[in-house]
């Protein structure tokens, strides 16, 4: 271990939560250090305190609500907790800077990109306007933004997600800070963009000797970028170590659990069943948004182009794609939450693509959907039971039988049947997603559509919900349509996969074959971008005594 002074050193840091919270400390007795030329990943699930830790370092905690009460934060040896607000302000943006999760909202929408980089120079330097401009162009070039001279005049909404994050990074690096804090900087980005941004952060850190504190929930990202890893759980550090050691032989049970929960990119072996009956199929399904305003010419978006898919009984078809690929559009057309612009959707032999609402109702039962956001999927004003019986009673089931079924289903999805009288806010996100699955099953559907149903969940909860989905598919011999942006998840639950890109299915085949040998250039790029693709998470090696002693 080097004796050189670390860039950032946290020592016994504790941050209190306000009275009435579910625990006294957001962060408790946290110590770790970021060394020069090092990327330290702090990894944890939501509520682990990783983000609060990062905000505490920057002095960006909301006043009077979260307060650091103990410990020290040393930036190049100076304790930040002893600084005046003025001194802290002089350090922010100059010696330490931060980039955030959502580059769209982190950039001011009414200021031009170049001005937002230049702002840092205005605040902290006496450079002339000409010098500032030169520096802006220089850093824009350093973060590999094309045509800086032109792009500095753009507003954030005119840029892509990746370009926006590059602008953020450029602003953060304009004064060559000693410490860069990156708070989930790629979580809101598509996987191909994520790969580029991760590479950029790594390159820049090497070129400029910057210490990087990188907050993430994603072990794939950890594997790709981290030199060392700190694992946090409910405000405390549970384990720390070099990346390879920590991923291969984690010591703490929580770390082991987290890493084991990461789905593997290698498709799970699935029985190749006798080709069962096709339950749902689309033929040249099209959806065009917009067009035809009265006073205003609306722009047309061809969200789905000639999509042709088959889903068989007892099988799961995955649609994989990045944002804007049209995968959710297809799902919503199939459930008929939106009206397709053309093509056919067959359930057995009935074409429901263009059925008017009146005739559609009788088919509603047959296709059910589970949505992404567990917090908005249940009516907050109704008890769980009332949400569960609504559908069956629409189709004539008696009140008594419907409640009976609701309780059975609660049991089936692993919840207490007595909880039917509770309200959604009394459940966690994972539990709510179980309830949504129960609600869909209550209709005794033939097809179950899961639209990013596990994307908003922490990785450990995600694994359990995926397990449940696969169980109910097998138990009820359901045809399942699984929409996801995550190749790892798709590898674990899908029998077949369709890859969508800009509204078009570019590749479609059995999961094992497609993952083993992707044909289309876009599919290949998706696989190349998948973070941590070279790692087999959860296949742990036991440490030898000597190795353990070294850490």
């Amino acid at each position: 271990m080097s004796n050189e002074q670390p860039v950032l050193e946290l020592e016994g840091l504790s941050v209190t939560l306000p009275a009435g919270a579910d625990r006294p400390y957001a962060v408790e007795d946290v110590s770790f250090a970021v060394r020069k030329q090092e990327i330290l990943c702090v990894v944890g699930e939501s509520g682990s305190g990783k983000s609060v830790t990062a905000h505490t370092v920057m002095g960006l905690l909301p006043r009077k609500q979260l307060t650091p009460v103990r410990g020290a934060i040393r930036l190049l040896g100076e304790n930040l907790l002893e600084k005046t607000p003025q001194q802290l302000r002089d350090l922010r943006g100059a010696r330490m800077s931060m980039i955030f999760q959502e580059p769209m909202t982190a950039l001011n929408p009414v200021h031009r990109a170049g001005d937002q980089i230049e702002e840092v120079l205005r605040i902290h330097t006496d450079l002339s306007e000409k010098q500032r401009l030169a520096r802006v162009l220089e850093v824009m070039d350093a973060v590999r933004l094309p045509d800086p001279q032109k792009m500095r005049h753009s507003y954030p909404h005119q840029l892509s997600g990746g370009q926006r994050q590059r602008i953020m990074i450029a602003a953060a690096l304009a004064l060559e800070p000693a410490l860069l804090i990156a708070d989930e900087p790629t979580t809101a980005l598509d996987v191909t963009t994520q790969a580029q941004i991760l590479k950029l952060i790594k390159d820049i850190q090497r070129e400029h000797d910057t210490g990087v504190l990188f907050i993430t929930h994603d072990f794939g990202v950890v594997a790709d970028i981290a030199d060392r890893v700190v694992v946090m759980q409910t405000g405390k550090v549970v384990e720390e170590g070099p990346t390879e050691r920590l991923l291969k032989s984690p010591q703490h049970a929580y770390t082991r659990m987290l890493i084991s929960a990461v789905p593997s990119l290698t498709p799970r072996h699935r029985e190749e069943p006798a080709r069962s009956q096709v339950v749902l199929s689309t033929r040249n399904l099209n959806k065009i948004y917009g067009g035809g305003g009265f006073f205003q010419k609306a722009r047309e978006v061809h969200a789905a182009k000639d999509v042709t898919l088959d889903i068989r009984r007892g099988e799961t078809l995955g649609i994989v794609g990045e944002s804007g690929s049209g995968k959710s559009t297809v799902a919503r057309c199939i459930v008929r939450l939106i009206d397709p612009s053309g093509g056919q959707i067959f359930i057995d032999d009935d074409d429901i693509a263009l059925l008017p609402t009146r005739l559609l109702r009788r088919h509603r039962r047959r296709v059910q959907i589970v949505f992404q956001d567990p917090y908005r999927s249940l009516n907050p004003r109704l008890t769980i039971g009332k949400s569960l019986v609504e559908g069956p009673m629409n189709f004539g089931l008696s009140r008594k039988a419907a409640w009976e079924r609701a309780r059975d289903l609660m049991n089936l999805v692993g919840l207490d049947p007595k909880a039917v009288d509770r309200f959604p806010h009394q459940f966690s996100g994972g539990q709510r997603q179980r309830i949504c699955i129960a609600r869909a099953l209550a209709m005794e559907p033939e097809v179950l559509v899961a639209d990013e149903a596990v994307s908003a969940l922490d990785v450990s909860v995600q694994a359990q919900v995926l397990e449940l989905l696969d169980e109910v598919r097998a138990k009820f011999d359901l045809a399942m349509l699984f929409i996801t942006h995550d190749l790892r998840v798709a590898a674990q639950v899908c029998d077949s996969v369709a890859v969508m890109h800009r509204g078009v299915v570019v590749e479609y085949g059995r999961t094992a074959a497609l993952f083993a040998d992707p044909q289309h250039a876009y599919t290949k790029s998706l696989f190349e971008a998948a973070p941590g693709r070279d790692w087999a998470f959860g296949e742990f090696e036991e440490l030898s005594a000597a190795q353990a002693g070294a850490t």
Partner: protein
Amino acid sequence: MLGFIVRRLLATIPVMGVVALFVFLMLHLSPGDPATVIAGDYASPADIERIRAKLGLDQPLHIQFGTWVWSLLQGDLGISIFSNLPVTQLIGQRLEPTLLLALTTLIITVVVAVPMGVIAAWKAGTWIDRSIMIFAVVGFSIPVFVLGYILIYFVSLKLGLLPVQGYRPISEGFFPFLRSITLPALTLSVIYIALIARITRASMLEVLDEDYVRTARAKGQLEWKVLIVHALRNAAVPIVTIIGIGIALLIGGVVVTESVYNIPGLGRLVLDAILKRDYPIIQGLILMFSFVYILINLAIDILYTLIDPRIRY
């Protein structure tokens, strides 16, 4: 840009049409015969007949509407029943005091209310914020005319600082004009200040929760610059919107304030006309005020594109 303005201008046509239809139907669908209503309680049958013919009330309804709209399009608001003068001419004579009163009020309001709202949001939860919010809710609750009389009583009668009532046109000198307009404008601006200060605070609070405000702080930006450079401009759209919608409040307030302070403006013209049931004037003025409101809000729509680059045209 020009295309956008033209499109927006076209989009106001149906709204203006609806207003015209309302104003027209108000007279013709109200219970009783309009001519009798207009003529008043002591009119002779001959008077009523004269009014009926004059207003074209003997024609079928749609013809009447058509004729009326056609003359409106030519800028003809009709002839006053009592003074026999064109309504447009009457409006022209009374325009100055109303316009200047509204303008002064608007200036006072923006200058006072926006900083108040910004400070309240910045100091949210403190006694400064609370005092400003109490002023805002009280200001919003005092009837304009009661406030007018309170101000006259203390400032003019007790302290003798400003004239009690009346209006001095700007042509008689700026200073006398200013003395005559000060109290009315203050009276009128209180409710408007209360409204704008509240919305400024609310929209600033919302914006201060945004990520880019955190980014600005992360860059080490000074707190007041965070407020002005980053937050206020983003909060401007709702503020400007409410200023526009508040124009309706302002117009209503003008009518009352002119009555309290005895200012010979459009508000007095319309009140007198209502008491005398001089229908062409009432219709003309309601139409004019509504069109002004629509056009101001159109201008504000166009202003949005300058404030926020995301709003496309």
